[in-house]
């Protein structure tokens, strides 16, 4: 039975994170000097602190040494973190998701014994997924409701050399790459159709990471271009069967509701700032919250946040309970993709409404409002954008069966 009542543990986690955001994160990330300089270097001391609280291993099973929480709880945590800093939220969400998918689900016992202790021991060990390649066409676009004529193979290759794989190629915009301790790399091996995954330690010879221009960043968290120049890893680092990697889609099905939750946190930060200010600022002889025009705007923002959260929680709960879709309790539509697309458009609109309360201060770089708008805009254009997400949803609505799963919605 679907219940909206959180467990005492979930409420405790939420309150703990809310407290961390208020006491530690916001006072650092929203300093005027940092905002004014557009300084988005990762606050490593805060990430360390979050790791010590167990957030890096939030989704990792208890047996593996993590907190083993479900995706709904991950969404709650991500939303709270993002109200203070979407970059911290993005890094932790990505590492925690990969920790669960890699260690709990895809690694062999032998691989786990080699990689898990190092991950648990080092607060600075983040996990990175290197999948996307430069100039690759990820959009559904013209292929909507049409079988793709050809899906190009990955240009990053791995060739077998005795007991090793030799990797060559370039990945782009790999989340967590600049701080990654362990990379999961999507490669093409000779003679196979689909991609394979190789586990590559960051310190492998020939692996280099280049961070993009940090001015006016258009992504959240950490991100980098990763080059592989004859990088050699043991044959035993192949994750699962060759040519049949399910890593990207497994990660996406977990991560998508959390990306929407991160977006929601941005909207909440804007809304909370606007509500505080509206209760302080006096114009027209009274606090501006007492004017119909401002009150209604804030109400509309609050409605948008609540509806968005309902969609995200439903999608997260569905990913935790696949049986609910199987039993037809929940729609079998791609709820996570729908939540993410809805959140992207709704939160951008809500953030703009919230900042209207601030007049000229809404565009000043030393104030947080312009950052909230920019953060919401990043979410609106994440991946291939909401228009493309809607095409994927439309294919699902019409039960279009795509020969390749690469372009399907979650």
């Amino acid at each position, binding site marked *: 039975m679907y219940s909206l009542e959180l467990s005492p543990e979930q409420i405790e986690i939420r309150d703990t994170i809310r407290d961390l955001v208020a006491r530690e994160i916001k006072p650092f990330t929203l300093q005027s000097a940092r905002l004014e300089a557009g300084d988005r270097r990762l606050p490593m001391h805060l990430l360390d602190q979050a790791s010590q609280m167990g957030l890096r291993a939030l989704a990792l099973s208890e047996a593996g040494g993590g907190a083993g929480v479900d995706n709904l709880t991950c969404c709650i945590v991500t939303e709270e973190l993002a109200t203070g800093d979407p970059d911290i939220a993005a890094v932790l969400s990505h590492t925690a998701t990969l920790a669960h998918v890699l260690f709990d689900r895809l690694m062999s016992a032998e691989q786990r014994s080699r990689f898990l202790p190092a991950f648990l021991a080092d607060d600075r060990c983040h996990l990175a997924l290197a999948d*996307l390649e430069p100039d690759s066409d990820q959009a559904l676009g013209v292929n909507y409701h049409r079988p793709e004529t050809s899906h190009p193979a990955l240009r990053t290759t791995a060739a077998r050399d005795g007991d090793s794989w030799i990797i060559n190629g370039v990945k782009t915009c790999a989340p967590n790459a600049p701080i990654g301790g362990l990379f999961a790399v999507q490669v093409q091996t000779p003679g196979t159709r689909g991609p394979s995954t190789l586990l590559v330690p960051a310190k492998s010879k020939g692996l280099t990471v280049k961070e993009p221009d940090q001015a006016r960043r258009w992504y959240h968290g950490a991100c980098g271009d990763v080059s592989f120049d004859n990088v050699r890893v043991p044959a035993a680092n192949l994750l699962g069967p060759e040519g049949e990697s399910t890593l990207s889609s497994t990660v996406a099905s977990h991560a998508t509701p959390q990306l929407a939750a991160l977006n929601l946190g941005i909207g909440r930060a804007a809304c909370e700032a606007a509500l505080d200010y509206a209760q302080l600022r006096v*114009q*027209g002889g009274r606090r501006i919250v007492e004017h119909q025009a401002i009150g209604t705007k804030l109400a509309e923002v609050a409605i948008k946040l609540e509806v968005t959260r309902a969609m995200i929680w439903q999608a997260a709960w569905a990913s935790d309970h696949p049986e609910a879709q199987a039993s037809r309790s929940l729609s079998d539509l791609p709820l996570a993709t729908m939540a993410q697309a809805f959140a992207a458009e709704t939160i951008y609109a809500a953030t703009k409404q919230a900042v*209207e309360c601030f007049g000229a201060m809404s565009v*000043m770089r030393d104030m947080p409002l312009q950052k909230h708008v920019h953060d919401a805009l990043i979410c609106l254009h994440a991946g291939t954008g909401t228009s493309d997400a809607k095409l994927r949803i439309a294919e699902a609505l019409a039960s279009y069966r795509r020969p390749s799963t690469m372009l399907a919605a979650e």
Partner: protein
Amino acid sequence: MDFSLSNEQRHWQMTARKFADEEIRPISLERDAIAEPRETFDWDIIKKGSKLGFRTMAVPKEWGGQGTDFVTQALVMTELARGDSAISKTFSQNWKWSHLISATCTEEQKERFLRPFVEDDTFLLGKGISEPSAGSDNRLPPADDPKAGLKLRAERQGDEWILNGEKCFIANAPVGKLFFIDARTNPNVSLREGTTMFLVPSDTPGFRIGKVFNKNGWRFYQNGEMIFENARVPHANVVGQVNASDVKSKLAGDRSGGDLFGDLELAANALGVCLEACDQAMRHARTAKQGGKILFEQQLVQLKLNKMHMLTEALRSFVMRVAWEHDQKLNSNCAGLAMNFSSDVIHEVTELNLEIHGAFGGVVNKAVEKLVRDALIWTHLAGDNVQRMKAARRLGR
């Protein structure tokens, strides 16, 4: 009905378009990218534009200006804004206040202020109204509340007025040579009855510029704090009458019931940004490919291009109609509505342009992204609740 432009209007439009293409657009992105807000300004472009007449468009010909009509002014603001919205605004900000000098100042004041303004390519004007606790209250003062609105105090001492207080968010403050300053000369009555406008040169003793604001859009356009510490202004610098600062609309022949030029200015500038966004989007749609085909072939892209052009052309019609109505000296409430509309349109059009371009892999087209940041300036200048209610109240009078 006749939508054609005169030869002179067409000439100004073409001159402005050429200047925007050859001089403004090439420096737009590099100026925008400068982190320090004081450093974004470029006197070179101001001098070049001034020599072509873009600084003095609204000064009557008998005083050495261009004496252009509102239609020409709208055309030029639009064309300049296609190159860079903030640079266009830096020029047109002078028109607003040079218009005020020629319409409301005495001959003696014109000799002292208008003549040097016309002669000096680096002479810029500004006006100080907003204060830290008085933004909306200046735009829409609550009836009979003497506490609401600006607080900058001016007290008479012989032939001088002593000004004390501060202004914030003042356009051209860090670069201007002369400012129109609204100050309270009677703090016990409402804003309308107790405010006087003064001409304050930048070298006035006791007057200085404080912080320069670091805006996220319109980065070229300078905006600063003004600090008055016993600033001494001669009585001869009072504009119009003491306790009657709201002189501009009536004396300047404004038949919009509000701030005609200011409203038209934002709408016309927005039109330029929208035209630039349409150009960028169309160019991208016809060259960038997805799935082996140009984007233009996709229905979704066509629908977005349609909406961008539909809104932009509607805004163009509205802007030109408002300009024309006022050249014909018709009474019309439309200027405020056109400005409000321009805020909605510039947001939607610049956002659709970004959608067509996308930001895949964290890579964004900087020229496209800049238009979205510039557009967000309209939220508080042109499209906030107060500006919309003001337009409605004029209709309801």
